[in-house]
């Protein structure tokens, strides 16, 4: 536990020691505002749909920027040797890095809290979908962060880690999207929607928190964190 906290702390500091954290937060908050105001006044409804409709794709684009350096940079600058020869389990290292990246994502979401507060002061805001939307965003983002960390653990090339994570996150987004799933028969489409990250997000963001959706996101996250641990262990065989 101490080691997880130490790794997470170091990792968070590394984010803020480089421009990555600031660029991420700026881009995230900026894009969120833009998407929100894009539809808010034209629809004239006191909700945050404009924001939450954009969140899945926003995550696909921005999360890989947070995860690309997690292991690739350690590998490139050689500090991997220091980390991996400490008496720490790879799982502790992976957990620490995950928590740091998740916390930064959380800060990004916190920055958008001004929106629901403003909306609530303008009209009657139904807080259910808003809370659901934020919960869903953290879960969805967590799953993408896990995917990104796994990809980063397989390479020393940050650019490659970014692109690969983006492609895989996009694939998880895409399979459940109507534009893709709608091409298939009803049963296949249902399965694809079940696999897709965005389709499930939409139902949470409506304020419907289904246990199956939670399990889906948590197992996706767990699977890729475990895969990260596996990738680190496999490196010893290099």
């Amino acid at each position, binding site marked *: 536990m101490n080691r997880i906290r130490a790794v997470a702390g170091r990792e968070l500091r590394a984010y803020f020691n480089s421009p990555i954290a600031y660029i991420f937060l700026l881009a995230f908050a900026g894009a969120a505002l833009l998407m929100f105001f894009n539809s808010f006044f034209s629809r004239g409804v006191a909700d945050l749909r404009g924001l939450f409709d954009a969140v899945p794709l926003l995550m696909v684009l921005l999360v890989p920027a947070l995860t690309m350096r997690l292991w690739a940079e350690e590998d490139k600058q050689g500090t991997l040797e220091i980390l991996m020869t*400490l008496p720490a389990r790879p799982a502790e290292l992976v957990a620490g890095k995950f928590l740091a990246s998740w916390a930064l994502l959380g800060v990004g979401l916190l920055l958008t809290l001004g929106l629901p507060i403003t909306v609530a002061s303008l009209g009657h805001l139904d807080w259910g979908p808003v809370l659901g939307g934020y919960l869903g965003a953290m879960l969805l983002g967590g799953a993408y962060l896990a995917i990104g960390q796994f990809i980063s653990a397989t390479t020393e090339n940050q650019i490659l880690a970014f692109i690969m994570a983006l492609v895989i996150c996009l694939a998880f987004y895409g399979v459940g999207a109507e534009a893709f799933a709608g091409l298939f028969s009803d049963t296949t489409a249902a399965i694809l929607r079940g696999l897709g990250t965005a389709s499930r997000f939409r139902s949470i963001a409506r304020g419907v928190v289904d246990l199956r959706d939670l399990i889906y996101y948590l197992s996706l996250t767990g699977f890729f964190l475990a895969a990260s641990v596996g990738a680190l262990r496999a490196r010893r065989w290099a």
Partner: protein
Amino acid sequence: MIEARNLHKAYGETIALDGVSFSVPAGEVVGLLGPNGAGKTTAMKILVGFLLPSQGTAILAGHDVVRDPLEVQRRLGYLPENAPLYNDMLAQDFLLFMADMRELRGDHRNRRLSTVVEECGIGNVLTRTIGHLSKGYRQRVGLAAAILHDPEILVLDEPTTGLDPNQIVEVRELIRRMGETKTIILSTHILPEVEATCQRAVILIDGRVRADGSLEELTHSRVQVVTVAVPDPRQACDLFREIPGVKTVALDGVPDHGFQVFRLEMDGDGDVGEPTAEIVRQQGWRLRELRRDDRSLEQVFRELTATGAEVAA
């Protein structure tokens, strides 16, 4: 105690280690020597549990590094080649991070932190960003982190590269001091460094141990060289041959102003210096030189890399 048992390591087609065995008794400083690409770094990465051997294993401080890496890593300090560090951190934050990862607490933690800062001489760079430090300071920050938890065993991969001559002397002194209580293995190309810090050397060439012994054993020669002026070289040869312990006597080169070089090869590790001198005195010969033909570690190293011959020790 470090014991490498029949380590093999292949990177794809390339064989880095081909059956490497050696041991470092507790409290000894051993130098791992070899040309570039001999497998020194690979061997060290296996010892510290960063890489797994394709075959064989190593026992450090009583634990098998393949089966039980965490137990080994608790008792081990490792300075990787070129001292990789987190460039974005302040030196002190890095040491604090390492103390957290080593779970050092309370008084002990503070005492160790101030001890390593003083021992490695990094007190004046603690609040500087590691990425802005000179190579020498980086190396010393890395060393401080490696010895932070006062480990039983130290594995140092080229600990003095990039240091200036004064720093080299300081780091060697530090290694020698730590060697009084710790088991240390260090790799280097710098042969005088081995002579200055190590009791023993293991020479690795093409992934195999080509020599393993104390510095004395490695450089020890069984040839006694005598340069004297003698009237009859043949008769002198006969006299020298009668010395107990001398196996053969050979004339070396041509006489120089009457002085002739004799090479007396011994059949054991004994010393025939005194009986030789005694004969010279009895015969009333003029003596110019009497020495054992010991080689420097550098010569041994060059001979091994050139011929690939094995030195028994």
